[in-house]
Structure formats: structure tokens, C-alpha cells
């Protein structure tokens, strides 16, 4: 029984693939490659060593862009959330910059960093930075006062208070913010690679179309993007289950 329940998503995917295959057989044409052609495309990419190379290139950019955003946004968010006056100064700027899609920055990214990794990393950084910053600021403001008072009572100076009380207190909310940001990073990298670089999964998709309408490779690229995005999300969720993070205020 249990095995059947576990197999349910697999069965569902198989059914969808079958419907896709049947539809393509009934209406042959140029609308979409069929599943076999996509699988063939994947094998092609593997053979040429391109799949591995492009996945690594995309992950490399995401790691840097996301990592830089984490390193900068979280401490900055802690400080802004804690010092009320800093928040008054910062928040109008943040509120204006935040709704601008990272993709709108593409021309400026190319102007500043040229065509290459740096541009893509910069765009990913922008996509992650603002959600993380806002998550941190809001999370700091929702910390129960009793933790802050207890920390001050033990004589913590502002820096130690941030490191030992404010930061751990916001970890549950941060994890949610990190998960969302990593999702955004994975969306942005594909878009950035379509324009700003010559490698990666986003480049694969435009390149396959431009270089001879290889739609089997286009869809193969999409499938790989989907699977890796799912794996990244699973990795973030497993972080949420880590023992020292597995608490929240609501338990009291």
C-alpha cells in the first residue's frame, strides 16, 4: 500500500507523458517536440558534455549571487530592523528599488560588468537581496521583547545582542526568506543567461532555438531547470528540519 502511495506522483507523471505523446502523434507538426525527442535531446547534451558544463555554470552564478545577497542582506537587515532611525532612512529607498524586476537591470548590468559571469551574478544578487533584506527587517521587528530584554539583562552590547539574540531569533523566518530567494535566484539566472552570457541553461535555451530551431533541446533545457529548481528547494527544506532550527514562537 505504502509503495503505491509513494508511486502516485511517478504514475501521474507517466500519465502526463503518455497524453503528451498521444497528442503529438495525433497532431504531428512543429508545435512541440514529443517526449522521445526531448529524451533524445537530453542524451545529445550529455554526449557533448554540454549538460554538465551548463548546469555547473548556472549553479556557479546562483551560488555567488545568492551567497553575496545572504552575506550582505542579513546583517544589514538586522541593523536596520534594530536601529529604528536607520529604518526610517532606508525604507523609502528599499521600497522604490524592490518592485523593479531584476531583469530591468540587464542593460545596466551589461554596461557595468560587460557580457559575462559578473553581470549574471549581479542580477541574481539584486533578485535575492531585497526579499532577504525585507524579511530580516520585518523579522527583527517581530522578535518578542522578552528575548531582547533577557539579552540586555545579561549585559550584551549591540553587536553581541545581534549575533547572539536577534540573529538566532529570526532564523525561522529567515529560512522561509532564504527558500523564496533561492527560488528567485534560479528564475533570474535563466533570464540573465539568455542575454548576458554565453553559457548556462538559459543560454542553452536561446542558443538551441537560434542555432537551428532545436526545440527538443529547448524543452530538454526546461526539464533540467525544473528538476534542479526542485532539488534546490528540497535542500532548503531539509535545512528547516535541522534540529536547532526546528522551533518557533508558536510552540509556547
Amino acid at each position: 500500500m505504502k509503495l503505491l502511495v509513494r508511486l502516485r506522483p511517478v504514475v501521474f507523471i507517466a500519465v502526463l507523458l503518455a497524453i503528451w505523446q498521444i497528442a503529438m502523434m495525433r497532431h504531428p507538426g512543429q508545435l512541440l517536440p514529443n517526449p522521445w525527442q526531448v529524451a533524445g535531446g537530453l542524451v545529445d547534451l550529455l554526449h557533448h558534455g554540454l549538460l554538465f558544463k551548463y548546469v555547473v555554470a548556472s549553479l556557479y552564478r546562483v551560488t555567488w549571487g545568492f551567497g553575496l545577497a545572504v552575506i550582505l542582506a542579513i546583517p544589514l537587515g538586522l541593523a536596520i530592523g534594530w536601529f529604528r532611525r536607520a529604518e526610517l532612512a532606508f525604507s523609502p529607498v528599499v521600497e522604490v528599488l524592490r518592485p523593479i524586476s531584476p531583469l530591468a537591470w540587464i542593460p545596466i548590468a551589461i554596461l557595468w560588468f560587460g557580457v559575462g559571469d559578473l553581470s549574471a551574478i549581479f542580477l541574481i544578487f539584486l533578485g535575492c537581496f531585497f526579499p532577504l533584506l525585507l524579511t530580516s527587517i520585518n523579522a527583527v521587528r517581530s522578535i518578542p521583547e522578552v528575548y531582547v530584554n533577557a539579552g540586555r539583562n545579561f549585559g550584551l552590547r549591540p553587536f553581541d545582542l545581534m549575533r547572539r539574540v536577534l540573529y538566532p531569533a529570526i532564523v525561522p523566518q529567515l529560512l522561509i526568506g532564504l527558500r523564496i530567494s533561492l527560488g528567485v535566484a534560479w528564475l533570474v539566472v535563466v533570464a540573465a543567461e539568455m542575454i548576458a552570457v554565453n553559457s548556462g541553461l538559459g543560454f542553452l535555451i536561446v542558443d538551441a532555438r537560434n542555432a537551428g530551431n532545436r526545440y527538443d533541446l529547448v524543452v530538454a533545457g526546461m526539464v533540467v531547470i525544473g528538476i534542479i529548481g526542485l532539488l534546490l528547494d528540497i535542500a532548503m527544506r531539509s535545512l528547516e528540519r535541522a534540529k536547532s532550527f526546528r522551533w518557533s514562537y508558536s510552540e509556547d
Partner: protein
Amino acid sequence: MATTTATSSPMTPPDQSALLRPKLTVHRVSMVFHRDDNAVPVLDNIELTVADGEFVCLLGPSGCGKSTLLNTMAGFLSPTGGEIRVDNEIVRGPDPRRIFVFQERGVFPWLTVEGNIGFGLAKLSRTERERRIAHYVQMVGLQGFEKAYPSELSGGMKQRLEVARALAVNPDMLFLDEPFGALDSITRLTMRRELLRIWEAERKTVVFVTHDIDEAVQLADRVVVMSARPATIQQIVTIDIPHPRDISSARYLELRDGIFAQIGLAHRI
């Protein structure tokens, strides 16, 4: 009744605890909160001296301002009038020599029992820190739970953990704000006995806020009876019964009934 009456008038005779070395003095303290352009007076001209090593209960109805008074003593709030001194120094903020115990809500949920108890010991050497943690784990009876997180503990255990965290930094004073209010009545009785045991062993100065008359009379050397808001001190009752107290003795009942009468409650329901 062997009580000392303190009112807000400066004509009050000095209370007997002032004869001992005063630890904490509250002098003409007033507190006014401002809400939507309304001034709400919470504390009115409070005058109180707590002696070194004394156990004092602040007793009053809910919302009377006794917690506010405790927060000003601990330095979390600044009074709008008057001054508070500890060891003759004006209190200007919280201080690790005086630890505040918030019900059990104050334990850090992201730290284990050990991590919580060791929180205030960052400056000590590793071995000294571990020795103290082990000592206080033992004292509050949390052996076997050293690696547990607060979410795995009961309310009473969390409360003991917070008391252990406070004692571990070896403070001179403890401020307890209705620390056992959220516990069931059996655990509450055990916790009172534990607190008295610890207090008799370590002789900290304790200021304990409660709205429970029995709790106050069971624990305190002196009970400070406060009026409804704005809080003034109605009466200070000295509990002259040695520990362990027989809570069915005539003297206990006499003192308790005196406070009931003072608060204006008959003890027949």
C-alpha cells in the same frame, strides 16, 4: 498585627528593613505612560527599601502597575519621577548583577538547556563554564535534559531553566515577575519550595511580583501590598514566621486574612 504601615506621605516612620544594609531603595518613584495624548499615571510616589538578602513580594491586583515597578527596578523602564538606587548607585539600565526572570517565556528556544544556562557565562573559561552549567543543572533538577531544547520541556522545567540561567551568572538580586503564574497548582507549590530552598542556599535579594496572596505570605519576609492603578503602597506586612512555614498555623492565617482585609476582600466566597 506586627505590620509596618507605609503610605505615600513623607511622615512615614522608617520601616525596620532600613536598619539592615539597604540593597535597593525606591525613592518617590512615579510613572506616567502617554497613550494617544492621554497621560495614564501608573505608579504614584512609591517609597520602598529592600534590605540585602531579603525576600520581598509585591502584591496587588492585575494591572495595578506592580510589574511596571519591577521593570523600573530592573532598569528596563526609566521612571518619570523619582529615582531607584541599588547599592547606592542610580539604576540606569539592566545589569547582569540583577537578573530578571520572565515567566518561562524568557528562555531562548534556539539554545539547549546547557546553552541557556551558559548564556551569561561567555566570558568564563570553558572548564569553569561547564562546571557552573553542571552545578545549576543539578540545582534545578534538569539532569538528563542538558541537550534538550525548550520545546521538549514542560512549563515547570522551562521555569526552572530560566531560574538556573539567572543564578548561573551569580547575580546579587533576582527580579521575578509572576514567575509561576502559568503553571498548574501542583507544580506551582513545588516551584515555591524549590525557590525558597535556592534562596536559603544562596541568599540573593529577591523581589517577587505576584497577585496571589497565599503565594506572597508563603514566600516573603515582607509583603508590599499595592493599590489599584495608579499604584501606591497601601501597607507593608512583615511575615514573622520562620521557614518552612506551616500554612495552617494560626499566625499564617492571621497574616493572610489581614492582607485579604486590606485588599478589601472577605475570604468567604
